[in-house]
């Protein structure tokens, strides 16, 4: 076996030593590199050499002649050099830090996804850099939006960024408060390129998202379209609860408590349904969009993905803050929401049914015992420790329950 000197001390090997190399191998190579430099040397099998060299306490008879001898290990176990490697790597990086050009921080479209801004980070400069002020050509405007327009420049309407900032902050407060009260929020963005924005906002706010076409009738015809979708019941600490399977099979489907729409022009049907079902909506209103379609309008550019990413992350962060505050208050015992009527009614009925069933079973058991006693001629014994019977589906008092949809696999991405 020919071993060539291949720079074990420097280079990448120093930073991430291979685990395949045994300690004997390394010792062999290090001794070689100190003696010769770069010339190929023919050496015998290092494993055999090492067993001959470094194990004086080994068996005297060669293992070749012993039938019970264990075969020599092909891959010797290496010591864990992770800590040393890491420290070496850090030292190398520190020494190389000053070398090379200084790259100025430049804009990257991923910045808004890596570090989503919150309601406190909303500034006029941020909105302008995100092209939120650019409306459509003056000929396609909706005059109802005149109050949001700052002026005309190069043939297009310029949206007033003060209005945008004020409306965005108001919408963020609404999202935060609805999340604090345990409401179900839905983020909708159906144009190409809005998928990542909508899913990120939903992930931050622990909300639902939609990036494909809205099925008409999802709210007004929910009994036909929505049944069969997974649901779960959680308590005030967002822990899933058992024992509600029967209810989840029978109940009506959920509708959102707040809908945030990034492109209202294409989702008129959804917004109309929300209006019929009395669901508040938040929408990004461009200069050609109808502002009365939504409850809370955010006048901004709906054609710029950068602008929508900023708006989406602000609302997502607001939802995150609301959820955090809700859980913190729940720890202290303060719950700002009530159990929905559907669940409380069902638990009452189910509890009563279970109680009756238990009582019937108890009475049947007593009757049976009395009959047996009468047959055998003994006096019926009194049961000891007869406390409250554990009924199936007896629910803990002082606990709030509400419905949630279970997390999907895509949520982890």
């Amino acid at each position, binding site marked *: 076996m020919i071993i060539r000197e291949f720079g074990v001390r420097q280079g990448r090997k120093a930073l991430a030593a291979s685990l395949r190399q045994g300690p004997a191998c390394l010792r062999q190579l290090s001794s070689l590199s100190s003696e010769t430099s770069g010339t190929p040397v023919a050496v015998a099998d290092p494993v055999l050499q090492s067993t001959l060299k470094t194990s004086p306490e080994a068996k005297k008879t060669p293992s070749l002649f012993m039938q019970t001898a264990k075969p020599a290990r092909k891959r010797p176990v290496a010591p864990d050099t992770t800590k040393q490697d890491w420290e070496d790597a850090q030292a190398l990086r520190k020494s190389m830090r000053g070398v090379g050009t200084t790259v*100025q*921080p*430049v*804009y990257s479209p991923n910045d808004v996804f890596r570090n989503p801004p919150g309601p406190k980070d909303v*500034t*006029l*400069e*941020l*909105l*302008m*850099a995100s092209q939120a002020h650019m409306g459509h050509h*003056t000929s396609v405007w*909706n*005059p*109802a939006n*005149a*109050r949001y*327009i*700052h*002026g*005309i*420049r190069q043939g297009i*309407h*310029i949206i*007033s960024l003060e209005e945008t900032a004020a*409306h965005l902050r*108001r919408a963020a*407060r*609404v999202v935060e*408060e*609805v999340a604090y*009260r*345990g*409401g*179900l929020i839905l983020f909708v963005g159906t144009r190409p390129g809005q998928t990542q924005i909508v899913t990120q906002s939903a992930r931050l706010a622990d909300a639902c998202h939609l990036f494909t076409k809205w099925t008409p009738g999802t709210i007004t015809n929910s009994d036909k379209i929505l049944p069969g979708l997974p649901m779960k019941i959680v308590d005030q600490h967002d822990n899933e609860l058992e024992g509600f399977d029967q209810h989840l099979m029978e109940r009506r489907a959920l509708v959102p*408590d*707040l809908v945030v729409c990034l492109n209202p022009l294409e989702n*008129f049907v959804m*917004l*109309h349904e*929300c*209006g*019929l079902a*009395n*669901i*508040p*909506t938040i929408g990004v209103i461009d200069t050609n*969009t*109808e*502002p*009365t*379609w*939504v*409850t*809370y*309008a955010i006048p901004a550019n709906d054609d710029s993905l950068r602008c929508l990413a900023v708006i989406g992350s602000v609302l997502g962060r607001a939802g995150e803050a609301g959820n955090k505050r809700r859980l913190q208050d729940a720890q202290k015992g303060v719950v700002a*929401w*009530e159990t*929905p*009527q559907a669940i409380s009614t069902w638990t009452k009925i189910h509890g009563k049914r279970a109680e009756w069933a238990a009582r019937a079973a108890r009475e049947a058991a007593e009757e049976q015992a009395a009959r047996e006693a009468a047959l055998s001629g003994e006096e019926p014994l009194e049961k000891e420790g007869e406390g409250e019977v554990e009924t199936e589906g007896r629910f803990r008092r002082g606990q709030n329950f509400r419905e949630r949809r279970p997390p999907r696999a895509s949520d982890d991405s």
Partner: protein
Amino acid sequence: MVRRPAQRQVRPARIYQTVTTLMDHRVQPRIKVQKPVWYNVVESIPPSEVVTRPLPPQHKTWSPKIRKASRLFQPQQLVFEEDALRKRFFKDHPWELARPRMIIEADGKDAHRCDWSKGLKQPGIPLSGESVVQRQLWRMHNIPGMTQEEAYDLTRKEFYRLRQEEDIERRVAVEEARMVGSYFGQSYLQVGMHLEDLEHERWKKWALSEMTKIRGEQQEAYSGTVDDAVADPQDEDLEQLTETIKEMAA
């Protein structure tokens, strides 16, 4: 795509009032109803005013002679002092418009970091006609006694110097690259000459086919031998050309 005409809606803005009415006037008053989750939220954070048209931001002064208020509530054109300077600069330097401009902003605070007293090159902003305009404006406002013309002349000369430096840099870079073995494609002139050559070849083929056609027509017209010299008295060069072409093709 046929867009649905924008129909004004009233329901979204009035969900709070609707739900209040529904809860207050129940068919079965004894049965308890729950307030929706958003009810208190919308109560404390009411939606903003819509559809009304307040006076828009004023960017111009109205002439005192105008008595009718027909356009009073329409958005106005945004006009800046720099517009006139930009018009002048790009009229004098039309090829500056051909230079590509990078208009993406990182955080929108480039203007805060600019100090136009220092020079035309500012951090984060590429050199262009816009830098000239801003520097000229600074000169007009901050140097007493400076006229627009004077400021323009001083600033544009600084600009020419910087553009010249850029050109020199580019030329030197090309030389350095050639020195270490890189090669470049054809220059604009070479591309133009190549296109001209192609056009010339195309014309030659056309000329040949036209000549054949004319000769054929003449042969049909005259029954006897055709005197080529009589038919095309002035195209002797062209005949030579045809011969050479035929020889070359063979």
